[in-house]
């Protein structure tokens, strides 16, 4: 069976787990929402909030990413299914793309919700002209985050203390996404006088990042997880 069909199988399985357990819908989304509110609490000087809203959206996304990745691999390790998958001879690239695909689908929903929350909570506005930029940013950033998350999630999954190894590896790696996506969204929302055209170079960076980690991750996943 082709790696690509296997990847789709795995992604579908992950999404089915979500449909059956509703953990993400019922828990991660609210978590992300609460995170945003908490940020707002912690930094309650209003003018500040306006200024940093895009950054906060992506911070909340990143912390939710950690939770999502943990969940995604908890499913696999709870009862030794990851071992079973490896023994089943499922190509490690298929596992990588499958898990990343499932993760990306979940992430993108999350990001859209967060962005809407930001628009409402922090009083941001979205203009029609910037929607293309916004959508491209979301997709590129999501792919990058999903790739990094899957790669390190898989590495950490086999070890004790995985709850803690994962953030240590992931956070520094996704920092570029955080920055790039923040700047791009600032441009899209016109925060602090940014204009839409400022955003595109950042999107370029996000795309490069996503491609690099997508390709690199699929190659690296085998050696990292297989032993």
């Amino acid at each position, binding site marked *: 069976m082709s790696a690509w069909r296997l990847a789709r199988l795995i992604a579908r399985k992950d999404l089915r787990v979500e449909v059956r357990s509703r953990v993400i819908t019922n828990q991660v989304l609210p978590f992300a929402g609460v995170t945003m509110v908490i940020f707002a609490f912690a930094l309650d000087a209003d003018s500040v909030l306006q200024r940093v809203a895009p950054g906060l959206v992506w911070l909340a996304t990143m912390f939710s990413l950690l939770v999502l990745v943990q969940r995604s691999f908890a499913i696999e390790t709870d009862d030794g299914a990851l071992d079973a998958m490896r023994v089943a001879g499922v190509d490690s690239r298929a596992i990588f793309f499958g898990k990343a695909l499932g993760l990306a689908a979940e992430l993108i929903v999350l990001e859209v919700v967060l962005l809407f929350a930001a628009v409402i909570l922090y009083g941001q506005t979205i203009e029609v002209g910037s929607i293309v930029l916004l959508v491209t940013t979301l997709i590129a950033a999501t792919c990058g985050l999903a790739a990094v998350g899957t790669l390190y999630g898989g*590495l950490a999954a086999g*070890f004790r203390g995985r709850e803690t*190894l994962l953030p*240590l*590896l992931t*956070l*520094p*790696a996704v*920092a*570029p996404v955080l920055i790039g996506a923040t700047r791009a969204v600032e441009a899209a929302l016109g925060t602090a006088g940014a204009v839409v055209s400022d955003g595109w170079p950042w999107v370029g960076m996000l795309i490069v990042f996503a491609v*690099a980690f997508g390709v*690199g991750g699929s190659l*690296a996943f085998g*050696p*990292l997880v297989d*032993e």
Partner: protein
Amino acid sequence: MTTTDHDLPAQSSAATTSSATGTRATRIIGIAAIVALGWLVAFGLGFSPADRDQEEAVRILYVHVPTIWLAYLAFVVTAVASAMYLFTSKKSLGWDRMAGASAEIGVVFVAVTLAVGAMWGRLTWGVFWQWDARLTTTALLFVTYVGYLAVRRLGGSHHQRARRSSVLGLIAVIEIPLVHWSVRLWRSLHQEATVLDTDGDIDMDGLMLFSLFVGVVAFTLLYVWLMLHRTRTMAMEDIVEDRGLDAALAARRAEGEL
């Protein structure tokens, strides 16, 4: 993989027979490093002039910049050695040890850059730390390689360790250009590239430049010296582990005799 195959790089086979990691060559390099460091002190603190704006504080430069350059070099060496481990068919653990040793030294050098930079910042900017792009990316570089070292310690056989960490070593090295060009990318507070500038002309006082050069030479010698010793101690650690395995094997087999 047999008992005797420790994949020792040729030059360190001495390590298996003597109990020390020093050889004539390393002793010479060590002495050269000490001499160069002495020169660095002399030029850095004595002969080179104070700066127009920075005044005496500029002398920090002669440590700050060479250490980060050597750290870059160390991480590139890590990446190259990782690639050599992964993509050569022999899968020699020598490359892996080289990668590990280089990363360790690199982390120490980045730490020095960070510490010295922070002190410099206190002198010139009035604070230890600024949330400037270069500083932040440097900090992230540091954390990334701390993570790399953490993964090296995850356990498993030598080749498992080597495979895992060599992959990470290749991924992590991408961050170096990010640090280097961060100033451009984010137009930050920190000094723009003045020495390794792309336009080629170096605008620095001659003696200052020479002092910097002395610093680079001194830290390079130090790096080479540390590398030689560290790879050899790591080789010996691996040998000790393998001997431990022999002992453990004997003990395990003896269990069955009872």
